[in-house]
């Protein structure tokens, strides 16, 4: 079983998104980036499969900025290979473009199972796994919380609305969007990542940027708040009196 895990870094939401409000543009270079948490889950699930039934795991990332640390971390956690897709890419790549780049690389490779985070903070609609599967013409499932290898096929656990869970069977190759791994992602110690960075290589694969259908973002902006919360300050008596007043104003008091 050869597993590819599609990984990327996303802006760290601990800081505000850097926005040029005048131009309506995101200032991609002014933000700090962290590994997408769902991709971490996908990597963990791949490593669990590897430990459980044996597999070769390859972490794949598109280089839009420095992605070495992300990939060295994947190697430190137990990935067998790390591949960096290089080309004329920058941080403003659309998800459609990203999916095309991944697919261009993947279709030449003998992978049986492609795992990706089900979504990312800049892919809230979870396009990547679906688009990659669509472009390659492979089966696809998303919002998956468990992947197991059985004989030559794959058994998936997929969450449905209304508290239902489906057990799905698929032949390989297949693309899966991971919601959560079976166990929390493991920790990669700084020393181990450093050691891996010294001793291991990241494979670089050049991929052309193909034309894909695109939308144009006119502007990014922060929505204007329509209403504000009222903060009630003061000592206990004042606060209690004000709360009672508000309840009365809104006819929420029953006598």
């Amino acid at each position: 079983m050869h597993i590819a895990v599609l990984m990327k870094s996303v802006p760290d939401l601990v800081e505000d998104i850097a926005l040029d409000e005048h131009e309506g543009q995101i200032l991609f270079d002014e933000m700090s980036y962290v590994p997408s948490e769902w991709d971490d889950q996908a990597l963990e699930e791949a490593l669990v499969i590897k430990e459980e039934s044996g597999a070769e795991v390859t972490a794949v990332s598109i280089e839009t900025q420095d992605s070495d640390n992300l990939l060295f971390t994947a190697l430190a956690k137990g990935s067998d290979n790390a591949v960096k897709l290089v080309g004329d890419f920058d941080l403003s790549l659309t998800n459609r473009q990203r999916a095309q780049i991944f697919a261009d690389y993947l279709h030449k490779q003998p992978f049986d199972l492609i795992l990706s985070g089900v979504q990312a903070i800049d892919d809230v609609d979870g396009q990547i796994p679906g688009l990659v599967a669509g472009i390659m013409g492979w089966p696809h499932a998303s919002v998956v919380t468990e992947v197991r290898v059985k004989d030559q096929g794959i058994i998936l656990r997929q969450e449905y609305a209304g508290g239902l869970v489906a057990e799905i069977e698929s032949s390989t190759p297949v693309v899966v969007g991971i919601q959560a791994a079976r166990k929390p992602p493991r920790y990669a110690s700084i020393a181990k990542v450093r050691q891996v960075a010294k001793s291991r290589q990241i494979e670089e694969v050049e991929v052309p940027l193909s034309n894909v259908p695109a939308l144009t973002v006119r502007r990014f902006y922060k929505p204007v708040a329509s209403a504000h919360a009222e903060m009630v300050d003061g000592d206990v008596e004042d606060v209690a009196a004000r709360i009672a007043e508000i309840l009365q104003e809104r006819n929420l008091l029953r006598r």
Partner: protein
Amino acid sequence: MIGQDILMVLTILMFLSATGYFVYRMLPIFRVMQKARSTNRLDNWPRRLSFMLGQVFGHKRLLRLRLSGILHFFIFSGFVVLMIDVITAIVQVFDPHITLDAPLAFVVDLWAVLVLIGILLAVYQRAVIKPERYHGSDERDGYIILAMIATIMIGIFLHESFYPFAAPYLFHVHPSLNPWGFVGYLLGHLWLSTHLASNPVVAESGYILGYLLDIGMVFAFLAYLPTSKHLHIFLAVPSIFLHKTRPHGELVPPLPEDEGMAIRTFTDVNWKDVLDLFTCTECGRCQAVCPAYAAGQPLSPKMVILELRDALRKELNGEDSVPLAGGVVKAEELWACTTCGACQEACPVFIEHVPKIAGLRAALLEDGEVDKNSQKVLVGWDRQGNSFGQPPRKRPAWTKALEAPIKDARKEAVDWLWFVGDFASYDPRLQELSRLVAQILQQAGIDFGILYEGEANAGNEALRLGEFGLFETLAQKNLKWLESAQYNQIFTTDPHSFNALRNEYRKFGFEKPVKHYTQAFLDLIEQGRLSPAPLRIRVTYHDPCYLGRWNRVLDAPRQLLERMGVELIEMPRHGANSFCCGAGGGRIWMEEVGIKERPADNRIREALSLNDVNYFVVACPKDMSMFSAAVQSTGSENRIKVVDVAELLAQAVGLSVPQSAVAIK
């Protein structure tokens, strides 16, 4: 002559076989020590020697537990004094003209009696008092040893009392009973009055039996030692001599390039660590003071040492080795440690438990195994430099509410550089305290500054979680500014940062003076820059582990309280024997699973046992969080209030103390 010949040959055979077997059992241990890492424990030997003598002959630590200390002193001194008997008894077999002079014979008998009293007390302690600290120790071994020693004492009296009656037949000499050897003298008269002495067969048998029970048992004892906790007879003294003399609070010494912190096998520890395992006396004093153990957690520092020792013995017996971290010592045991160091403080043979636990944690961490909440914190330190998951630029946000701005020490020279720390910077409740500290400094006219967003977590806890690489990264971030900024001394409100800056940053060549705020405030009062008015309250004071135990700052906080007109009532556990709040070593972030009584609750109950003490004074931001919560969870809001020493000082120097931080109305 035949009887003497047999005894001589027997003695030589016993000596050779016992020492031979002893060496045979000890050699593998020394081979392990040879393969282990190096550590310099022979520097400054005169100081080591005097320290050792104080501990060995003064029994300083042992006497902290009165009964145990006294009974141990009886038995221990017996081992030293009764060497006189062992040597004379053996020499006598080879040259019967040698006898003990009057005072020496008295000394031997007196000590043999003292040892027997010691043994009775020891049996009383084990069988009747049954201290909890023995839980998990090999009690059978304890009794075997006591029985062996008692046998030796009986042997001494037997061969001594029968000697004058057996010697004419065995050795052809005619000694008389020596009244100075009073026990032997009395027994000798008993043998005379019962006519046993006049029967050559009984006299000879009595002497030979006594000789075998004495000298034979001494050799049997020697052969038994390598597999017993009583190996400490030989190893304790060297172990105390070889005690750690590097800065007490330094967890990890400077590491050579190719060595990490992680302990996976016995080659990853230093030779003193190996020695520690076989020096352990299983006395359980570490267990008795361990906050994790008291809280019902699966950790006992004693069991960690014993588990490692037994694993090493098994390896030496050719069994397959089990991974040390997570196998021999379970992950739950390792993560339960608060790194408070109470175990090391209590250990009479100066075993270092905490570095071993941290090294084993490092091995778990390298394999990606760590408590998930702690993992988030580690990631937060790596990304944002703080444990609150907040952006670095918000670190100085607490300063905005101050009337007078604080200097940016990155941009201009200051007298004092204040290293604020995560909790005092980000925790809203503690930010009030930080502002009070700033106001106190401003009132004292101190030229001070902070590093603003240039400060990162000092890395003390990252290191104690076993994340050396992250500690290094954090230290480098801070050192960038600590080395380029201009200042005369560092001042910190956080004992954990204090410890890192003072002890752990030395490995990077950083040696600026660092003061805890209790020390710095005391300086200000002594220089007349602050004149506190007496507060006239009764308080108790909690020594933070990383201030008191690890850095020995015990007097400054107490003197500071005295200068503020505060009456200090000490809790039973105070000073270097303070009881941890439970937050250290990363515990503050970990899930509390299976805790019977939180260490902080235990501590608050200790404070409540004091008479008329309404204030629980702390000098550590983490203590403020931990103990405020403990006061609530023990439902003691009306009886005791947690206050920071800075709040008291602010009050004493007439600053207006904000209501949210206020202690005294």
